[in-house]
C-alpha cells in the first residue's frame, strides 16, 4: 500500500493539465516566491524611514508617484516593501504552527478515535478545554510570561490547532474504524499501530490536507490579530498584522497604510481556501471518474 497517493503521484496530478485552479495556485506561488526572496526583491529596505516622504498615497492618487507604488506609512517606509518582507514571517509562522499542531493533533485524534474508551474521554476533554480557552488570552499570557516572540506565537497557535485537528481526525476515524476493512486487517494480523498508520491514516489524508489549507488562512489571520494587539511578533521588522494594527490610527486620513496589508492577508487566505477545496476533490478517489482512476 502507499503507492496510491505517493508524493510523486500527487505531484504529477498537480502538473496534469486540465481543471486545476490556475489563479489560486499562481497567487500562492507568487507569495511563496516573495517569501523566499524577501528583502532582495523589495524596492526599498523595509525599515528605511524617510520622514519627508510620510503618508505618500498610492501611485494613482494625485500626490502619489511610482516611487512608492502602494504609498508610504507614517514614518515614510515603503508599504510594498514591507508587505513583501512581511510575507516570509507570515508563511513561516503558519507553516511551523500548522505542522506542529497538525502532527500532534492527527496523532492524538487517531489514537483517541481508534482506542476509544477512557483514553478517548481524557484526550477529547483536554481538546475541548483547549478549544474553550480563548487563543488571544493564551497568546497574551505567553507573551507576558515569556516575552513576545515568533517562537511563542507558534507555540500558542499550535496549542489551539492540535485540538481542532484532533476533533476532526477523531470523527473520521470513528466512522472508518467500523468498516470491515479494519476488521479484516486485524484478522490479517495487523497491529494497532499498523492499522492506524497504514489503513486509517490514508483515508483521512485528504480531509487533513483540506483542513490544512483552510487553516493556513486562519493562522495568518490569527497571527495578524496577535500582532494587532501587540502579543505577536515584535517589531521593527514588518509583519502584516502589526502593519494593520499600527495603520488603523490613520484609516480616515491615510487608508492605504492598513488597507494593503489587509488585502495581502485576504488574498492569501482566499487562495489557500480555493486550493484546499480543489485538493479535496482531486484527492478523493470516490470523486474520480470511472476508468480515469490512476
Amino acid at each position, binding site marked *: 500500500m502507499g503507492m496510491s497517493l505517493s508524493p510523486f503521484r500527487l505531484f504529477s496530478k498537480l502538473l496534469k493539465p486540465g481543471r486545476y485552479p490556475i489563479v489560486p495556485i499562481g497567487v500562492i506561488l507568487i507569495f511563496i516566491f516573495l517569501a523566499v526572496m524577501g528583502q532582495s526583491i523589495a524596492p526599498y529596505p523595509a525599515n528605511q524611514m524617510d520622514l519627508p516622504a510620510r503618508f505618500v498615497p498610492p501611485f494613482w492618487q494625485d500626490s502619489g508617484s511610482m516611487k512608492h507604488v502602494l504609498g508610504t506609512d507614517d514614518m515614510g517606509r515603503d508599504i510594498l516593501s514591507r508587505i513583501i518582507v512581511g510575507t516570509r514571517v507570515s508563511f513561516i509562522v503558519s507553516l511551523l504552527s500548522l505542522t506542529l499542531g497538525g502532527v500532534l493533533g492527527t496523532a492524538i485524534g487517531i489514537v483517541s478515535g481508534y482506542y476509544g474508551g477512557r483514553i478517548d474521554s481524557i484526550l477529547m476533554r483536554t481538546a475541548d478545554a483547549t478549544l474553550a480557552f480563548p487563543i488571544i488570552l493564551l497568546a497574551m499570557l505567553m507573551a507576558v510570561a515569556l516575552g513576545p516572540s515568533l517562537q511563542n506565537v507558534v507555540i500558542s497557535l499550535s496549542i489551539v490547532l492540535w485540538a481542532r485537528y484532533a476533533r476532526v481526525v477523531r470523527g473520521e476515524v470513528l466512522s472508518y474504524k467500523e468498516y470491515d*476493512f479494519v476488521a479484516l486487517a486485524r484478522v490479517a*494480523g495487523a497491529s494497532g499501530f499498523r492499522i492506524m498508520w497504514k489503513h486509517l491514516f490514508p483515508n483521512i489524508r485528504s480531509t487533513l490536507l483540506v483542513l490544512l489549507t483552510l487553516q493556513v488562512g486562519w493562522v495568518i489571520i490569527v497571527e495578524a490579530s496577535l500582532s494587532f494587539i501587540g502579543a505577536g511578533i515584535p517589531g521593527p521588522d514588518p509583519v502584516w498584522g502589526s502593519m494593520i494594527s499600527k495603520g488603523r490610527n490613520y484609516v480616515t486620513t491615510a487608508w492605504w497604510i492598513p488597507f494593503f496589508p489587509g488585502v495581502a492577508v485576504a488574498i492569501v487566505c482566499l487562495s489557500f481556501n480555493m486550493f484546499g477545496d480543489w485538493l479535496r476533490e482531486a484527492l478523493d478517489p470516490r470523486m474520480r471518474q470511472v476508468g480515469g482512476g490512476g
Partner: protein
Amino acid sequence: MDELLRVKNLKTHFFTKYGVVKAVDGVSFSLNKGETFGIVGESGCGKSITALSILRLIQEPPGRIVDGEIFLEGQDLLKLDKKQMRRVRGKKISMILQDPLSSLNPVFTIGSQLIEAIRIENHTKPSGYWEKARKLLEMVQIPSPAVRLKNWPHQLSGGMRQRIVGAISLASKPQLLIADEPTTALDATIQVQFLRLLRELQEKTQVGLIIITHDFGIIARMCQRAAVMYAGKIVEIGPVKELFDRPAHPYTAGLMRSLPKLEETVERLVSIPGQPPPLDVEIKGCGFYDRCDVGLELCANKKPPVVNINPGHEVRCWNTQRIEKGSKGCQ
C-alpha cells in the same frame, strides 16, 4: 482425515455493567483439513463471537475468553502471546466478512490491496507481486484482471468486490478460512455464483472452511457437517444430511419445519413461538425450554446433557427417548 481445528469447551463471556453475558458458553467442535463446516443460528446466538474467539479478536474489555481450548494443527491458540497470535492470523487464518462494500479500503487500488496480502505470505521478489495479484484475480474469475488491478474499490460491483475479498483472504494461503455471512449483502443470483466459486476455491486449495450463516440453504449447499447454535450453546451437531433428514433437537426440528418446501403448498410457514432467552440472566435448565413443544419437567431446572445419537451426531437435550422411538426424528 487430518484434524485442522479443534475447539473444546470454549466460553466467551462479556462483563457488562448489567451483568455477565455468556455469548459463547461451552462450544466444542472440530474441523478436518479441506472440510466445510457450518454454524447456523439466529442473530445473537453467539456464532460470530465463536469465530472471533478462534481469532482471539474479542474486544477486551468487556469480553474475555474465560475457558476452553482452541487447537489449530495441534497448537493451542489461547496459549500464544500477542505477537505469535498476530502471525497465526496473517498466515494461517483468514476471514471473509458480510459487507463487501466496506471490506476494501476505499483509498487503495485493488492491486495494492492484493499485493499487501501477498507480501504477508512471501517476503522476497517484489517484482513478481503484480503477476501474482493478476493470477489471484483470475482465480476468483474476475474478467480482465489486469485492468481491474488498477481500479478503485468504488468502481466495482458488490459481487466483484466480495470475490476480490475472497482473493485477498486466500492470498496468504491460509489453512483456515472463516466466512461470516459471506453472502448476506449480495442479491440472490450473485449469492449462488459466489458460493459456487467459494466451493471451487475450497476444493482447489483444500482450505478448512467455516461458514457462519442463518440460512439453511447455504448449509445444505456448502457443508459436510454443521452445528446449530442456540443461546451461546451448540444444541445439535452432525452431518448435514442427518440434520436435515432427522433433526434431533426440537429447535432444529422447528427450524426445519419453518423452511418452505417445494413439494407441499402451505398457506403459512410454521414459526417457533417466543424469543431466545436474554444471555445475561442465569439459565437454570435448558435455554430452549420456554419455546419447546416436547419439554419435560426436569428441562426447566437441570441443564440438558449432550447425547450421542449416531456416530458424529450429538444433541443437547433431555427428551431423547422420542428420537429413538421414531426413526424420523422428533417430527
